[in-house]
């Protein structure tokens, strides 16, 4: 069985190769529809997002109607149907981060990046996401950049952090 976290997409693959890889993953899971969510995780890891075309591909392989795949994709906030930027900045708005100023962080990021949550900058460099508690409450307010946690962020730290990306 494929390893659940093995979704690295760093290799310079063509789309065709990527689809091949996803087909292999689906085979690895025995093309069973109960593994749909695991397959979607990996497919998103490879492509960065789940386009309708990709969803159709997975649906066909699993012999599921597209509507069912689409229904699952849109139910879970972890899945994205639009391309993400090179850096996904996730702002934690769990309670601890909220009471320690998480909302200010998101307001400031909106200003700096000029995009709202769920959006990507036109140059495809940054995406902004709101996250519901990343479990780093001792570090509040926390943000993640491509999954890496940055602790006790404030307006000044944000500026340098983004300037260094």
């Amino acid at each position, binding site marked *: 069985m494929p390893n659940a*976290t093995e979704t690295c997409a760093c290799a310079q693959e063509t789309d065709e190769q990527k689809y091949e890889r996803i087909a292999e993953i689906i085979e690895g899971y025995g093309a069973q529809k109960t593994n749909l969510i695991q397959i979607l995780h990996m497919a998103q890891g490879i492509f960065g997002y789940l386009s309708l075309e990709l969803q159709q591909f997975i649906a066909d392989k699993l012999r599921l109607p597209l509507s069912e795949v689409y229904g699952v994709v849109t139910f879970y906030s972890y899945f994205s149907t639009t391309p993400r930027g090179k850096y996904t900045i996730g702002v934690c708005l*769990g*309670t601890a981060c*909220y009471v320690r100023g998480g909302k200010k962080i998101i307001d400031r990021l909106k200003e700096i990046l000029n995009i709202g949550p769920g959006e990507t900058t036109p140059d495809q460099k940054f995406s902004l996401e709101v996250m*519901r508690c990343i*479990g780093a409450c*001792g570090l509040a307010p926390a943000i993640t950049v491509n999954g890496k946690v*940055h*602790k006790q962020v404030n307006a000044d730290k944000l500026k340098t952090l983004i300037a260094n990306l």
Partner: protein
Amino acid sequence: MAYKNYILVCGGTGCESSKANDIFENLKKEVTAANLDADVQVVKTGCFGFCEQGPIVKILPDDAFYVQVKPEDASRIVSEHIIKGRPVAELLYDAGKDKGRVRLKDVPFYQKQYRIVLRNCGVIDPRNIDEYIARDGYAALEKVLFSMKPDDVIDELKKAGLRGRGGAGFPTWQKWLFSQKVQSDVKYIICNADEGDPGAYMDRSVLEGDPHSVIEAMMIAGRTVGAAQGYIYIRAEYPLAISNLEKAIDDAREYGLIGKDILGSGFDFDIEIRLGAGAFVCGEETALMASIEGQRGMPRPRPPFPSVKGLWGKPTVINNVETLANIAVIILKGGEWYGSIGTATSKGTKVFALTGKISNSGLIEVPMGTTLREIIFDIGGGIRNGKKFKSAQTGGPSGGMITEEYLDTPIDYENLQVLGSIMGSGGLIVTDEDDCMVDVAKFYLGFTVDESCGKCSPCRIGGRQMYDLLEKITKGSGEESYVEQLERIGHAMKRASLCGLGQSAPNPVVSTLKYFREEYLEHINEKKCRSGKCKDLLKFTILPDKCIGCTLCARVCPVNAITGEKRQPHLINQELCIKCGECYTSCKFSAITRS
């Protein structure tokens, strides 16, 4: 081989984000450079719990507790402490004026704690199965396989009085018994690691720091109820926990502890990891099972309960991470021992994630029955920046507030319920005088409205209606009748929602209405927010007699709403003002008022 010194570096998510990895690598390099590899072992462990002071490095057997360590400190830790035997004083924890720099045993944060669940967190290398085994790991499984009958295990759990740590507090032995009694060819064990409660991270820490304890407990459950397959449903947001779990499962399989004919007992058991995908409702057990089955995570009515009809219609035991982490200890030390800890109805310990406006944020484990005052003031060190305590929130979006007058209540399942809150998964968020209770209630409701799956209308519509009322109240257009409406809708949601999410969603509102009703009425009648959180109710003005015209406020104002000549009193244009408060916080002469 025994080492002379052990250097333990906290490798939890918290410390890792503050370069704990570099500290670990540097320490290893320094040890090697000093030719001490045979005498000193550097270990990356799970979370120590005292996240506020991270990254933390412990040195054994000297009991040194170094806090806020930087990667460049590695060389002096090795050259001074390890080689010359002189602890680096300025890195030791400072316990305040009277006590000064102290050793681990004197750190107040740890003094009232009792670690059962977190027994191995911060002690062993979670990626090394031998270290777990050296601490009696898998001894409980062996005992269950070879010298206990399934009924004995359930008996032991019954004596222990262990109740589910995921929220509702249902007796664990009963869950297991129900499942055991059902005749079925296939049964399942699920570990619920979908820790979505904002402000709680004990499950993450256990999985990161001691994954084998959960695996072992799942196998004990499997043996007891007659299941051969387990699933761990874990949030995708916890990459380190997933990675440590994967490693643990692989290692256990290699050691013959997972798989066919475990330890020659004839017992088969396998475990698979299933990733969540960011849906809070999947922490609800029937929704979680739908998600494992590859569907939208929507709950279904109970009964039938999962113990009888669960995953793919088969009997399924679902326990949360913290519950499972207790099992092996109970088997080894006995139910009576465990049952001697805690209160009459709630046994053992509870892990709390202490966060918010508290001096010592972190993960703590205390015996049931400890008071909130002990947790907040003795362990937590009181409120940050000398502010005044306002409330402690337990149970996350399903829980309620506890106020000053109830701080001496011993915490257990029943007492919290009497106070209008719940134990929940153990998030404990402290607020101070700067927090607005209406705003906090709105925050929680916003969360549950967002996370409602939409299947049943009381939750889908009721939550939205309540949220809209709160929105109006915080924006200054609330009416007094809203208070009663909030209570009425909340009551309906509690009674009629399909699952725990909707049934408990009104709790934060109901609880703040109970204890902080006057704040609601202030917002409604006087259009005033005493803590200044509800911006639409604020007005900033410059006091002409105090303003010296330094121009700082005009420069920081993002919308250029402040005008004035140099060295002359300035003025805020109220129509342009967006009430961000930048001027208020930046003024060095207290010349700006907020009302």
